[in-house]
């Protein structure tokens, strides 16, 4: 039983922390949000590649730095604290792990390696109109094409994180022999990407696949139960990643709120001296600490292939994000009073990011139901 980070991990946390404070404060997120464009910077992405953050969690055999998901979680928690907008969760966790677990070596070489360098970015297209957070219920079809093992893809994908900007999209579809995953280029003929504004000020895309032709080499090596297992594991990494980033968001909100309580005056006193507000702040603190505990467990157990252990740890953590994390978020706005509901104050940006993270990779009800099946 040891909750300490290794020295390397502590250094990583510090490096990312320094970077986001100096190079990517909240004002940077706000500028990118309000500007035309993808909402994030390719240059910053390339820098993250150079710094090794994108490769950190992957084994050396795949071009990674030999870390584990813990490294990704450490980075995400830091990025959450100033709302760094680069698509770490979408591209490294959802995209990267899909390739790491589901692709063959050639595919990893071709699609994963350049992403780890920060040269490209990825997206995972799994959500559909009728699958309510279950990645294995897929209406998108992969119809066998004439000739050597190719397919044409037909259907719609929704709310694809980083789908508007990704160079390569990983798309789930049903083949005659079961669920499969395909790599599709962002500029593939027959693919229409509609950029969708998200509640947190980031962007995503809806995809229309109107007979997109893919070759056998674009189908990820795993098939049938393989692709299903890959998707389930990847979405657990995604949920644990959202929890880690959400922990960063929640702890930043708690700090901002405590700071506000200690400076704002009404009725001739600091409002943080009012006992009812103090106890509210304590309740927020409790939820942050419980979220931290479960985030620690989830970032370790997300690596486990054993389904029960993994699912219970990840779902408990994601549910805590959607309940405790949301409590912190909503009470932070409340305790900021009038300024809290303006777009001018940063607290609202965190509030919206928390709302998005609570939904991404399954909301609280979804994860609680999943947990309840295993008790």
């Amino acid at each position, binding site marked *: 039983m040891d909750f300490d980070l290794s020295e390397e991990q502590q250094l990583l946390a510090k490096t990312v922390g320094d970077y986001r404070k100096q190079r990517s404060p909240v004002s940077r997120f706000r500028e990118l949000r309000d500007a035309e464009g993808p909402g994030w910077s390719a240059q910053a992405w390339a820098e993250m590649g150079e710094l090794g953050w994108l490769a950190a969690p992957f084994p050396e055999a795949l071009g990674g730095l030999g870390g584990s998901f813990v490294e990704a979680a450490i980075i995400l928690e830091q990025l959450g604290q100033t709302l760094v907008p680069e698509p770490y969760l979408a591209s490294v966790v959802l995209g990267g792990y899909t390739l790491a677990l589901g692709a063959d070596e050639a595919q990893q070489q071709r699609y994963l390696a350049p992403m780890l360098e920060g040269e490209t970015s990825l997206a995972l297209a799994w959500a559909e109109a009728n699958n309510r957070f279950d990645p294995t219920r897929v209406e998108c079809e992969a119809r066998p094409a004439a000739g050597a093992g190719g397919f044409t893809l037909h259907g719609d994908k929704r*709310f694809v994180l980083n789908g508007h900007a990704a160079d390569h999209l990983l798309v789930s579809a049903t083949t005659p022999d079961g669920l499969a995953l395909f790599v599709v280029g962002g500029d593939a003929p027959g693919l229409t990407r509609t950029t969708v504004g998200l*509640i947190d000020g980031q962007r995503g895309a*809806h995809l229309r696949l109107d007979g997109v032709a893919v070759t056998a080499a674009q189908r990820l090596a795993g098939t049938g139960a393989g692709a299903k297992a890959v998707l389930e594991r990847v979405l657990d990494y995604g949920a644990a990643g959202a929890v880690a980033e959400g922990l960063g968001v929640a702890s930043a909100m708690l700090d901002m709120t405590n700071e506000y309580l200690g400076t704002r005056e009404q009725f001739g006193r600091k409002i943080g001296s009012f006992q009812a507000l103090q106890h509210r702040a304590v309740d927020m603190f409790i939820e942050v600490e419980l979220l931290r505990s479960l985030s620690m467990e989830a970032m370790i157990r997300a690596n486990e292939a054993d389904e029960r252990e993994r699912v219970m740890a990840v779902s408990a953590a994601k549910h805590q994000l959607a309940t405790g994390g949301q409590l912190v978020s909503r009470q932070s*706005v409340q305790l900021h009073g*009038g300024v809290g509901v*303006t777009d001018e104050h940063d607290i609202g940006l965190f*509030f919206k990011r928390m709302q998005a993270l609570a939904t991404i990779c399954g909301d609280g009800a979804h994860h609680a139901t999943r947990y309840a099946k295993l008790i």
Partner: protein
Amino acid sequence: MDLSFTPEDQTFREQVRAWIADALPDDLAVKARACAHFTHEEIMRWHKILAAKGWVAPSWPEKFGGPGFSVTQRFIFNEELELAGTPPLSPFGLVMVAPLIQRFGNEAQQARFLPKILSGEECWCQGYSEPNAGSDLASLRTTAQDMGDHFVVNGQKTWTTYAQHADWIFCLVRTSSEGKKQAGISFLLIDMRSEGLEARPMLTLSHSPAFCDTFFDNVKVPKDNLLGPLNGGWTLAKALLGHERTLVAAVGVVRRWVRLAKSIAAVQVGADDRPLLQDPYWRRRVADIEMRLRAHEMTNYRALAEQQKGRHPGPETSILKVVGSELQQRASELCMEVMGHDALAWLPEDGVVPDNERWVAPNFCYDRAATIYAGSNEIQRNIIAKHILRLPSA
């Protein structure tokens, strides 16, 4: 005890319903069904339709142009407007400053202001809060200096809702620094086109410019525009607080949000391929809110019944703001939840999400203000502890 309506009340209800169905323009009816935000122009268009019918100010006395509804009729009328989802009228003129002008204004002020509020020719906004006077309203610093025949106003108001559309603003200003801080406050009516007055719209969490910072730089205000006695503004503010309380019970809003949640849940499909509304878990979630809404509605009825008998509002009215605003947030949170992935969309284009989901996310964000404005719920609880439960002060 009797919870039924009389046959006359029922007839009235049918008349109102038929009239609304006929009078509400088609484009507004479409938006009403989608729980969309209405623009200022749309709201004022509906205001004028109601005004032409004589129904725009149901609570005003007949001598000022009210329709002479009984309290029950007012209740039925509001309920029908809410059920139809008609544009919510701006309360600042009709419901907030007008009753004060009726009660505290002189005849000249009543003649000058009331008809144009009624007709919709002039819109109002409220200048109360300041950057350092939110919950602690009496600490306000905007001053009105007495220059003989006029005042000169300097200072800043904030969170002035829709000031950018307003023709007039009613303000609490400091006219004296002597005595208790509540004692030196006066109530002024100020023309928004006055020189030195500027309203700068500010974005809210819903990304709509719902309120402004409003700056006063040596704004001249005629003495005629003082409402009530000099340094007596706090009394007017407190009288208004009572009005606001029933205003913010938000029964109609909550009911609309719950109905919306059900309409979304009837379409969104769950993990078992059934609509969420057929899943016992989601039915229970809706039921929990509906049961509490029912309790809130009955409490609101109790307050109305007291009013109808001309009695002072009982202790139950003090909880309306707190319960209503908290329910409003729960209901819009539920709307977000049933949407699943669609809750991620922000101000989406046509077709990105179903029509009835388009406005949920901004509503959800804007509703965070419900527990803050009109006296934050913390302040409301302080008031109940002190004045209703009579708990000791520190």
